[in-house]
């Protein structure tokens, strides 16, 4: 069984982002970048399945500028076997990403495609579902537990009301929640080994699909700031303020 894992390079989750003064976006120059956190869970799960003997190959794929390759390299360092980097500049919307991934799926013929449930930059939460629609495959979104069976997966999904269990036939798409597993750190020897693993490079423009954005970004602004609050010195004072000043209790 082959597992394809899609990973995205995003601004690190610990960075307090800054909006550009001209409203054209957020500052990305000299900002720490990392793998989108739930994509780390996707890689970890694929590697664990391979380690359990139920998968034979894990392929990491990313789409983006030259430096996006670092994200694939990191996946290789924690256990992916090889990588694919599709070079593309500028904004690539989830619909375009899913069309590119569809081309890669056609070529690689994986049994499973894993990715994070949402990217923490654009917060769209679309790509996995879109890819499964294009392929007409089953989808298991927001997965917090995956049980691999013969030709099938049993997946526990985190939904607003609690947990839902579904069973899907492979090939299938799974989008991973942060609670699926605890991603491992790459050891130094594995980082060195990863440098020798192959990364195939392709150009998005050679794939014969239109990836022009269909959503125009008119402006990006800072959200309204909350006005500074006060510190209270006691619980009694807190309750008095909530009752008489804020009038919420």
């Amino acid at each position, binding site marked *: 069984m082959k597992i394809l894992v899609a990973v995205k390079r995003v*601004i690190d989750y610990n960075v*307090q*982002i800054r*909006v550009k003064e001209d409203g054209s976006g*957020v500052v990305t120059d000299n900002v720490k970048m990392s793998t989108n956190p739930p994509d780390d869970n996707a890689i970890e799960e694929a590697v664990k399945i391979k380690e359990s003997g139920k998968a034979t190959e894990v392929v990491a794929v990313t789409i983006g500028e030259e430096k996006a390759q670092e994200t694939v390299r990191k996946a290789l360092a924690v256990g992916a076997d090889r990588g694919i980097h599709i070079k593309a500049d500028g904004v690539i919307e*989830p*619909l375009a990403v*899913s069309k590119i991934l569809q081309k890669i799926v056609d070529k690689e013929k994986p049994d499973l495609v894993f990715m994070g*449930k949402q990217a*923490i930059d654009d*917060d769209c*939460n*679309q*790509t*996995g*579902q*879109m*890819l499964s*629609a*294009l392929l007409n495959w*089953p*989808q298991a*979104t*927001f997965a917090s537990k995956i049980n691999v069976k013969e030709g099938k997966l049993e997946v526990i*999904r*985190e*939904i*607003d*009301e*609690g*947990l*839902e*269990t*579904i*069973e*899907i*036939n492979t090939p299938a798409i799974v989008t991973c*929640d*942060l609670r699926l597993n605890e991603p491992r750190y790459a050891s130094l020897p594995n980082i060195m080994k990863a440098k020798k693993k192959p990364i195939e490079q392709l150009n998005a423009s050679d794939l014969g699909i239109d990836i022009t954005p*269909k*959503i*125009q*970004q*008119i*402006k*990006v*602004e*800072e*959200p309204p700031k909350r006005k500074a*609050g*006060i*510190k*209270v010195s006691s*619980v*009694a004072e*807190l*309750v008095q303020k909530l009752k008489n000043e*804020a009038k*919420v*209790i």
Partner: protein
Amino acid sequence: MSVLLIAEHNNKELKAFTLNAVTAASQMDSDVHALVIGNNCAEAAKAASELPLVKKVICVEAAHYANFIAENFAPVVIKLADNYSHIVCSANTFGKNLMPRIAAKLDTSQVSDIIKVESADTFIRPIYAGNAFATVKSTDTKKCITIRPTSFDVCESSGGSAPIENADAGEEFSLTKFVKREEIKSDRPELGTARVVVSGGRGMQNGDNFKLISAIADKLNAAIGASRAAVDAGYISNDHQVGQTGKVVVPDLYIAVGISGAIQHLAGMKESKVIVAINKDGEAPIFSVADYGLEADLFEALPQLLEELNKLNTIQK
């Protein structure tokens, strides 16, 4: 053209957020049609027909719609899509799971989780965990939009009498099977719509200590929330998580207890009207968004808070 609003329901009643989604849909075009897909869901369809903003209800019933599997729902919506300029539903786990499957088949770039309708094609949506707001214009002729329920008012729920039409069901998608759903039942208000939310974080130290939170929540008729750290640590179940990858809440009063305030948590609660933070670390980032901060050990502060609340003659419900 008209707006097709995908109603979320449990076959009997509309889910509360459907009322927010109807409001958002009506701001895109006044001709809002509600689509109710389910099994034996006539009661839910009737409830949708009573919303004055809804002009028509389309009801599609079959056994394989009982469990709201996106693979079964998407073809129904796609079949109806020709007649509509906008397809709308809530950006909760139901809508997040379903809408992209529709958008991709319609070759539309979906606009997710909008908080404001500027015009029929222009919307505001938070990005980067709500640390920036993007104004975006969709150039697709057919627009697929998910809306953040807490950013729109609930619509009127009675007085309407829209006609209910039945439409044919589609085939079952046989590769996906529903197994079970474990819903956590609670007598408390729903987290997403509660007037007051009391949340605990890693500072609670264990699940048992959430009893201290429950006691305050009982007193204030509040829902119980949690940070991701508390859910990851197993103190409380996932449906309580507030934040970028959990639920977004906008209560009148949000009390954060033992929560440091990572940006991912703030993304889910910083629009609350009044925020209280109780934390023993005076430097915790949660204090930067709190209207009232109390630097204290929660294990001393919560029992005192309960005592002070008990002294009050009246408490708003």
